[in-house]
């Protein structure tokens, strides 16, 4: 009897550890329609939404501070990852190589203090945005956790017509 209880206890402990190791995923909705990209910011960020043009200006470093004066930190996926090129194409309407050229040119002009940060995974992206009050990044819409999702052109990723879903026409 003691042995059974002991084994059951150890199993329960192991199960609890496994649950604790995997972050509880909370979706703002239960579906990710057609590969929608959620734009995420720190929960303390007072901005609730952006137009696609404003988002583009942020990613292109034409706008570098939030309305509250905090420096914007643009966070992208690591170079070589398809998620990086996909986000650049959808938001900035250019290829990754063109974007890199643009960032280097603006840095060379002295217009940019530092370029975008590079992050290896969606979970790392969420951790960075959670910890950095001025950060803005992106994750698949079904992987949002602990961050605020911005409305783009007034729409959430689950809304029809959301501009950052696969196949949507950018401006």
């Amino acid at each position: 009897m003691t042995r059974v209880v002991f084994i059951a206890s150890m199993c329960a402990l192991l199960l609890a550890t496994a649950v604790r190791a995997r972050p509880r995923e909370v979706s703002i909705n239960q579906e990710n329609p057609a590969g929608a990209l959620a734009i995420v910011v720190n929960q303390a960020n007072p901005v609730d939404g952006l137009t696609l043009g404003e988002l583009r200006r942020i990613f292109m470093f034409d706008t570098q501070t939030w309305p509250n004066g905090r420096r914007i930190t643009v966070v992208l996926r690591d170079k070589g990852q398809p998620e990086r090129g996909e986000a650049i194409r959808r938001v900035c309407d250019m290829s990754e190589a063109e974007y890199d050229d643009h960032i280097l040119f603006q840095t060379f002009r002295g217009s940019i203090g530092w370029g975008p940060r590079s992050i290896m995974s969606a979970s790392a992206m969420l951790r960075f945005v959670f910890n950095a009050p001025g950060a803005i990044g992106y994750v698949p819409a079904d992987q949002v956790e602990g961050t605020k999702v911005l409305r783009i052109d007034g729409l959430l990723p689950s809304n029809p017509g959301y501009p950052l879903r696969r196949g949507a026409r950018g401006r």
Partner: protein
Amino acid sequence: MRDHSQRSACILLFVSVVIVPSGVIGYPSSVFAQIGHEQEHPLPGAAGPETTLRAFGTVEWAASQLREVPNSFSLGQLSLFVTSNLTESVSVLAEIVLEGHSPDTQVVTDLERLQLTFRLNDFFNISAGRYHSGIGFYNAAFHHGTYFEIPIGRPRVFKFEDDGGVLPIHELGVTVRGVVPHTGSSLRYVAEVANGRVWTPVAEEGTTERGPDANDAKSTNVGVSYRPERWRGFEVGTSFYRDTIFQTATSAVDHHIAAIYAVYRTPSTELMAEWLRLTHVTEGSTYHNDGGYVQASKAWGKLRPYYRFDRLAINPATPFIGAIGSYKAHIVGLRIDPVKWVGLKAQYERTDESGQYGVNGVRTQLVFVF
């Protein structure tokens, strides 16, 4: 003893099945983000200055129909571009250029830019140090970055001072830039105050400011530009520069430069046009000089043909720059970017300069970033 063991086992089971999972569910999800990851990906400046070094290199070959000018390979500038973020708001930029001027391996080192920038917000960014003056568009856009220039060489009016240039390309002072509020990033301004150019005869080296000002008069430059969101890549702007240059201890020349430009630049298309009027005013005389260019290029894959019309009209009587002479050129060429960060340009030039008209020449240039 057996009861004690069973009681302990039950307590352990209760703890592991009930208490621990409750604590797991009860933890805010934010804790998962914080635990063990607070030091990941620090923000700029959080762990000390982050310094990045890039370099821009150039190798050239040129030939001309002039017999006295042999065809030749040459090393262009090696531009070392250093940036460092001291904090979220403060950064440093330095551009050190090494140029080979002589037949041997000697190089001349120039500190072309050194500026510390404080970025308060999008509306106010202030830099102090040595920078490229915000006259017109080309100078503050391309600096010494031959990689970013589509044709070979700068427009004649934007030549560097030590290369027979007519403009104060470099300044030592303070520059303020930003977005005009309530314009949605469309309207931008620049305002600068600096020592101004130290004018010496064109043939001499060191015609730019590096040390203390030669007089109390300071140069000023103001400009505005407009980038409509509806027409991405399009920009128009104007600037006005003035300085007082002393010819002698008692006579001075008022030096004005008015510039206007329109550019359309996307990754695949570049259309640029600028016109500048340089005015020198002495006691009783006013000398007008004009310079400008029109430039167009279009990329088809890795190939990018281009054309530039380049013009500089100098009044020979103008103080300081009259001896430079006028210039006109038609340039047509092709740029190929075989791999990322490498460009190869080849162009044909037909120039009128220094009493020689219709001189034909070819130039090639290899540019790279590393």
